[in-house]
């Protein structure tokens, strides 16, 4: 019996583990380490309509239990991704979730139209939450009505279900989630990075050339859990959770908070094998916790009348 398979809009996942966008490129580098077929899905690096070079370096800075990045959505543009990266990924039996970004509504819509044509793209992840691009962008992730409108427009053209990636850099995440639900989103992914900063001890200046960057890694896990806990109780949309996941235990915790699947980002940089390792360890962890199927874990933190977990098992 498969105890890990999950069905979500557009996504028939053999297991709920996938690498997070921007942390796995288009898969080529990690295919040196293992067969990508083992993954539940792959969230590819953000696509914009035109190619982007991104920000000057340094683009990363380290901090306790986390890292800051300001890559700035570097990518070869939607057409190249459609004609060069996605066909390469097609050799694997893995659904692709394509992350799309833009500076204005038209960019998003056109990118969605192009990328959703690929046969192996089973869902879009609408990135309205990148903290590292200067123009436009940010309004889509922080103003509920703007996010709703954008979701609606992208839904109109997309050939596949649309998941909206929420930013934690807002005062009311529930309001954002409900707005994109109203806009017709099929699911949510959360969280993107938290805006942060590090300064150089010698110069007194920011370490990142972009000054600020997005904080990811274990440091943000409690924030992600809290937000998923809140949002999952207030919307009907399935949530792909992310933020600091490193282990099978972390995965189960995200499910308890309300996630139906999870993505692993920064941990891939530390251990290229982290995704297959988690997938391999999940069944024995479920045994230990007395859980038949991982889907039973979703929302356990807030669901009523649930049998308590059998800690003696």
């Amino acid at each position, binding site marked *: 019996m498969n105890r890990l398979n999950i069905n979500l809009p557009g996504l028939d996942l053999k297991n709920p583990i996938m690498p997070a966008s921007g*942390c796995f490129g288009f898969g080529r580098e990690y295919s040196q*380490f293992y067969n990508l077929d083992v993954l539940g899905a792959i969230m590819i690096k953000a696509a914009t309509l035109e190619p982007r070079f*991104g920000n000057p*370096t340094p683009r990363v*800075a380290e901090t306790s*239990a986390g890292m800051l990045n300001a890559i700035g959505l*570097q990518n070869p543009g939607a057409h190249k991704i459609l004609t060069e990266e996605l066909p390469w990924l097609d050799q694997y039996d893995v659904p692709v979730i394509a992350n799309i970004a833009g500076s204005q509504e038209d960019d998003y819509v056109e990118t969605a139209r192009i990328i959703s044509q690929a046969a192996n793209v089973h869902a879009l992840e609408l990135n309205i939450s990148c903290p590292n691009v200067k123009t436009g962008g940010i309004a889509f992730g922080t103003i509920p009505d703007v996010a709703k409108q954008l979701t609606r427009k992208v839904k109109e053209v997309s050939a596949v279900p649309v998941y909206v990636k929420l930013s934690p850099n807002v005062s009311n995440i529930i309001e954002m989630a409900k707005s994109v639900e109203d806009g017709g989103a099929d699911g949510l992914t959360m969280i993107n990075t938290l805006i942060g900063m590090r300064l150089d001890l010698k110069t007194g200046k920011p370490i990142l050339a972009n000054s600020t960057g997005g904080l990811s890694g*274990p440091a943000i896990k409690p924030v992600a859990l809290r937000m998923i806990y809140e949002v999952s109780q207030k919307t009907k949309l399935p949530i792909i959770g992310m933020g600091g996941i490193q282990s099978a235990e972390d995965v189960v915790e995200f499910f308890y908070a309300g996630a139906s699947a999870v993505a692993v980002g920064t941990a891939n*940089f530390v251990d*290229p094998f982290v995704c297959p390792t988690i997938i391999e360890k999940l069944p024995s962890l479920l045994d230990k916790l007395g859980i038949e199927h991982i889907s039973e874990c979703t929302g356990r933190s807030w669901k009523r009348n649930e049998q308590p977990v059998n800690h003696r098992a």
Partner: protein
Amino acid sequence: MIRKELCEVIRQTEIADSIFEMTVKGEMVKDIRTPGQFVHVKAAGGYDPLLRRPISISSIDRSKNELTMIYRKEGRGTGLLSEKKTGEAIDILGPLGNGFPLDEAKTGETALLVGGGIGVPPLYELSRQLKAKGVKVIHVLGFQTKDSIFYDSKFESLGETYIATADGSYGAMGFVTDVIRELKLQFDVVYACGPTPMLRAIEQNYQDKKVFLSLEERMGCGIGACFACVCHTTDDPKGFSYKKVCSDGPVFRAGEVVI
């Protein structure tokens, strides 16, 4: 092939002020192709520090499956690394990147190896391999001060070696580039690793020569996936074309990328 391996520390010694030489044993030594490749080291278990640290391979011993790194104790990561004892295991990812091309120096030709500070280590294995194939090697090495000099006699045993220190406490005072000019050194190929201003000067000064430069950049993954370490290419300096220091480099032909 890139491996992620728990390597055993064979020995670690402080060879100069805050400069550590660490030898580890691992299967990945079999996959090392060229001098100038690097490894990505997890300095400690747990989440702090979270990321790996890129360190060049300074020499290898294939018969024993051993590789040696030389690093300066800088911040938290290298600080923790310097506490590792013989017999302990370290999580290392490697070998990574593309090193110095040996083929560019022919038997009987002269190669100039220029290193600055912690850019000196990878030149050692390079020098050994060049010498072994009959290339004459000249070394010009720059250090901050007398106490931070290392491997001077090892380099001397391979070929002519000139040392410069920033404060003049040993050898010539000033920059390695001044030394090369004042001594009127003659050579066919240049291999260099060190601070960016030094690499820029070498690129400027020797446009008529074959020059190979090893770059440094802050890294995330070390394998080409995160786009932390990109630089522009010289043929398209403001455009979209790019190279990744970790997986396309760290060694580039002068003029290939914008430094």
